[in-house]
């Protein structure tokens, strides 16, 4: 298991790549969900700024 995390000495490069990928993916999933909720609420309350 330690071997796996060590990635043959390239741990910092491999895991930082996958870490950033996880952040980008999660941002892509939760960003639109939050945006959808916010827009739905604005329409419901008829909060149009124009």
């Amino acid at each position, binding site marked *: 298991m330690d071997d*796996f995390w060590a*990635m*043959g*000495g*390239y741990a910092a*490069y*491999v895991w*930082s*790549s*996958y870490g*950033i*990928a996880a952040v*980008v*993916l999660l*941002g*892509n*999933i939760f*960003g*639109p*969900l939050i*945006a*959808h909720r916010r*827009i*739905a609420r604005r*329409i*419901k309350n008829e909060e*149009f700024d124009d």
Partner: protein
Amino acid sequence: MVWLHRFGSLPYFYRVSRPIAWVLAVPGVLLAAYGIYGGLVEAPVDYQQGDAFRILYIHVPSAWLSLFGYTSMAVAGFVALVWRLKLAEIFIVAAAPVGASFTFLALVTGSIWGKPMWGTWWVWDARLTSELILLFLYLGVIALHNAIESPRTAARACALLAVVGVINVPIIHYSVEWWNTLHQGPTVTRFGRPAMEMDMLVPLLCAALGFTLIFGWLTLWGMRTQLLWRERRSRWVKRLFSDG
């Protein structure tokens, strides 16, 4: 052709896009997870690059998606300019941030991979430079959409930029053949046998397919949001929120 006509109907699209999003999301996430697991755990160590090559399983699907995403936006842009299809306009706006984030990911993971393999984070070679231009094209579409007040004018400007900018896609793809610099040549998409062992290749293809489905899911979800906002004064949207 009846279904195509119905799909152009905005309330119908809003209704059916929800289950379709799930149909894309579930296999997309499973395939991507399997591909990354296979790449990190099951694929054998590369004889030249050691374990550093495992960055491939995030880098290549992201890079593939950056090209696929922009090409799909260009097709939608063409449809939007010629037939004025509202859904095509909305597709461009929804796909741009997703495509931009995966282009960013391709650049960053490539840079992290480049440090141990090439000895540098960045070189101004043809592949890296043209991929960076792709990121700016995506950001340009987003900025254009935010800058123009009228939704129809904004959509036409974005469609035009998507169509014109697609010239960069073949340049990125062939850059490693036309200019031979640090970035390696094509491994998967060359004719004949791919230059990769099957137990390295299969997880990569799964991850790439999974990423593509995830792109479809996220873009569809973004389209639903855009559609609601653009149609906020229409009767069908008001009816959606009238009871409860």
